């Protein structure tokens, strides 16, 4: 190794890269800003449950709806749309934040 | 079949990977070095009282001096890729002869004394202090490594057990524990300029005898000059070439090649020996001292080139280390590689069609070639990587009609060591040598049985000495061993030039 100091500096820079990329020095860590529904104060489940599990609830219920034709189920993507009327200001915010690309909206309409 | 008081590996169906047999080779002991030799080489005359502290201090010093050692002690993931690659493991089944386990002998001491994890959780990390028992393991198993580097070929991190066994031997020497064979030989080189301790008068006598002998058999005046100032080339060979059979036949070969080429050359009485056992014990100072002696001899004789003979580890030192240890060789002709291997020298003459050859002179031989480990894995011939494989083969094909390759899995880059390298060519280690030779002998046996091979050519003095000794244990006559230049010698036609 000819230039240990330069190599070490390069390694350090590489390791620290995510830190700079994340915007070291900004006062606060960014978090998604959500526009909340105006027509209701509570979701079908507590917010914490929905945050962690909405995808599983929807996925589970979709089989009942498609296969059994039971359209009375509690968790339906069309149900979400009744309160969350602006996808871009609600769904997309968190999905973009976490790098998640759900396929739901390829077929299902959400305003 | 030669008789032995130990079991000879059965190679009838080749050598397969043996089951682990713990402690199978723990009983092997080398003869201890004398106080005189230890002292002469700069080591304590006997084991020092605070040997453990001295050993650990030496280990620490070496880790600071050698990147190889400091890195290799850390990065082994124990993947086991090397576990079935060592000829000593294949021949003995002793798990401490797996390269990774051999390294662990030092690594466990390293962990105990130099790493936080080893100090805190010794047992979980298999850390161990340098106890009397561990030292005994070091003495046994670091002298069952021929430093052939086969393991390093397969290691994903290039870990070379040779580096570790060299360091271990240096640490042991530094506390006054030495091996008689290597230390005695190094002492002889410092005294007389060659391993065998041949005085100048005996050397003169030998060379005169050879001149007469060649004159008698060929009718040509082939010279064996000694200390001839102003010669073009200084030829430096392993000293076994002056006496032993079949080594000496290759020496005659070199002389004939120089004669045919019409290039003046000379031996040196100050440095008549090419071998450098300093490397085997990892002693930088001793290796350097021996190399410098050779560089000085060339300078004193005023030669333009240094050509080296058929020796494996010595060629590694010459090729890889001379320039560093005893360079720069600015008194030599820059148009030739420094040093030049005698095979490179002969090969160049062949390419120029400068040699008259009669291949049929070797018709009684069906020849195969054994790649010696230090030539194959620690040096190069010619300008292209792998030249060390092609050039000796080119020569053999030029001088023999019947040439056969051995299994490439046991040759070339993956060649198995003869079993006698690295300072193990000593009688008390015969069991290690015979068992360690099994993988290579098995490859040889295969071509002997199936393709009628009766001669194995090689370019290493240790290989030649080892095989002539151990082949009879496998029911193969020692006459199967030949030097490459021995076959050149048979074929070369010395007309009027």
């Amino acid at each position, binding site marked *: 190794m000819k230039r240990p100091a330069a190599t070490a500096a390069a390694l350090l820079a590489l390791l620290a890269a995510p830190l700079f990329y994340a915007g070291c020095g900004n006062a606060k860590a960014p978090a998604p800003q959500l526009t909340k529904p105006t027509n209701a104060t509570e979701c079908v489940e507590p917010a914490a449950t929905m945050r962690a599990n909405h995808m599983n609830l929807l996925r589970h219920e979709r089989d009942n709806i498609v296969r059994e034709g039971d359209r009375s189920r509690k968790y339906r993507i069309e149900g979400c749309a009744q309160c969350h009327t602006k996808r871009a200001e609600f769904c997309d915010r968190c999905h973009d934040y976490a790098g998640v690309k759900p396929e739901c909206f390829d077929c299902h309409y959400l305003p | 079949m030669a008789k032995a008081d130990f079991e000879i590996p059965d190679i009838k169906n080749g050598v397969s990977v043996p089951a682990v047999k713990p402690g199978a080779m723990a009983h092997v002991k080398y003869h201890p070095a004398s106080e005189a030799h230890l002292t002469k080489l700069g080591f304590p005359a006997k084991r020092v009282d605070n040997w453990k502290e001295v050993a650990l201090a030496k280990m620490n010093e070496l880790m600071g001096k050698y990147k190889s050692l400091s890195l290799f002690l850390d990065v082994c993931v124990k993947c086991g890729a090397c576990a079935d690659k060592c000829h000593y493991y294949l021949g003995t089944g002793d798990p401490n002869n797996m390269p990774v386990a051999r390294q662990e002998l030092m690594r466990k001491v390293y962990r105990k004394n130099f790493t936080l994890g080893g100090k805190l959780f010794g047992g979980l990390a298999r850390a161990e202090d340098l106890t009397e028992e561990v030292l005994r393991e070091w003495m046994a198993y670091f002298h069952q490594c021929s430093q052939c580097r086969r393991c390093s070929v397969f290691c994903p991190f290039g870990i070379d057990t040779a580096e570790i066994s060299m360091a271990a031997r240096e640490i042991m020497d530094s506390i006054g524990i030495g091996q008689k064979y290597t230390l005695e030989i190094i002492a002889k080189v410092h005294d007389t300029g060659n391993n065998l301790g041949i005085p100048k008068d005996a050397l003169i006598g030998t060379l005169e005898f050879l001149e007469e002998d060649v004159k008698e058999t060929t009718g040509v005046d082939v010279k064996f000059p000694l200390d001839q100032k102003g010669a073009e080339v200084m030829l430096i060979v392993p000293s076994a070439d002056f006496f032993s059979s079949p080594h000496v036949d290759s020496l005659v070969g070199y002389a004939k090649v120089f004669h045919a080429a019409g290039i003046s050359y000379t031996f040196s009485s100050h440095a008549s020996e090419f071998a450098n056992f300093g490397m085997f014990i990892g002693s930088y100072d001793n290796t350097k001292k021996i190399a410098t002696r050779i560089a000085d001899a060339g300078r004193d004789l005023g030669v333009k080139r240094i050509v080296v003979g058929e020796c494996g580890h010595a060629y590694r030192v010459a090729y890889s280390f001379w320039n560093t240890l005893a360079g720069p060789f600015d008194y030599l002709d820059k148009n030739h590689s420094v040093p030049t291997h005698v095979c490179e020298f002969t090969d160049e003459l062949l390419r120029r069609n400068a040699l008259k050859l009669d291949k049929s002179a070797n018709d009684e031989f069906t020849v195969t070639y054994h790649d010696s480990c230090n030539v194959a894995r620690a040096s*190069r011939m010619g300008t292209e990587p792998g030249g060390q494989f092609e050039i000796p083969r080119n020569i053999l094909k030029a001088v023999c009609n019947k040439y056969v390759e051995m299994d490439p899995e046991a040759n070339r880059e993956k060649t198995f060591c003869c079993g006698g390298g690295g300072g193990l060519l000593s009688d008390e280690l015969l069991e290690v040598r015979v068992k360690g030779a099994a993988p290579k002998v098995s490859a040889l046996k295969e071509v002997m049985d199936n393709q009628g091979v009766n001669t194995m050519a090689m370019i290493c003095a240790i290989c030649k000495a080892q095989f002539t000794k151990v082949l009879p244990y496998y029911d193969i006559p020692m006459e199967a061993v030949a030097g490459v230049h021995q076959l050149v010698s048979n074929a070369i036609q010395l007309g009027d030039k």
Partner: protein
Amino acid sequence: MGGLSLLSLVYVALSYAAAAIFVGGLMRKLWGYAVTPNPLCIPTTPSPATKGGVVARLALNIVAFADLFKGNRWTWIGGYAFHVILIAVTVRHLRLFIYPVPPLLAEIQPLALLIAMLLPLPLVYLLARRKMVDRYAWISSPADYGVLILILLIALSGLGLKFVSHSDLVGIKHFLLGLLMFSPVDMPAHPAFIIHLTLVLMLAVYFPYSKLVHAGGVFFSPTRMMVDDPRERRHINPWAAK
């Protein structure tokens, strides 16, 4: 840092400590390798005679584990699969440390997930290999099994977070970004996440002081990194030159 829950306070402190030990320890190790001299030229030949050749060989070794492939195919399969899957795991996790997430990174998540979820397979294979072949059993210490089991536990807790007890991913990312930007926020008090994070911190601390430094050490190996040109170019021994 005011207003953090006790749990978050503890884990913020642990995370910074582990990161410091990981980065500091690794740097110290690699620095040590970098500055320790090579007194002699010791490439394992046949070896490239040019710098470019050495780089190409190293690249092949890093990308394909070429030397291990030569050494043992069965070990290669397990080791190579493990490392390739680790890359996919890294891709899965990178999005939690980068804001905003680059589009390409978001795009490849489904593929990365498909590969990443296989992580336990090579680990179990590597564990079984150590146990079942007598040679590998002989050389394996509790530490060798331990680190495989630790990574296996990390993998299982991670898969649990994904498939069994899904957590608040946005909350986790917020917490991680807070750590990265030195303005910590509360962490989601999700048991599976706490277990996962704890195991990862353990691995980070263990890393620089174990065989895991091979990840950086592989770039320093003299038998692989040195150019085979001792006759053409005089290799100077740094400590002998002084």
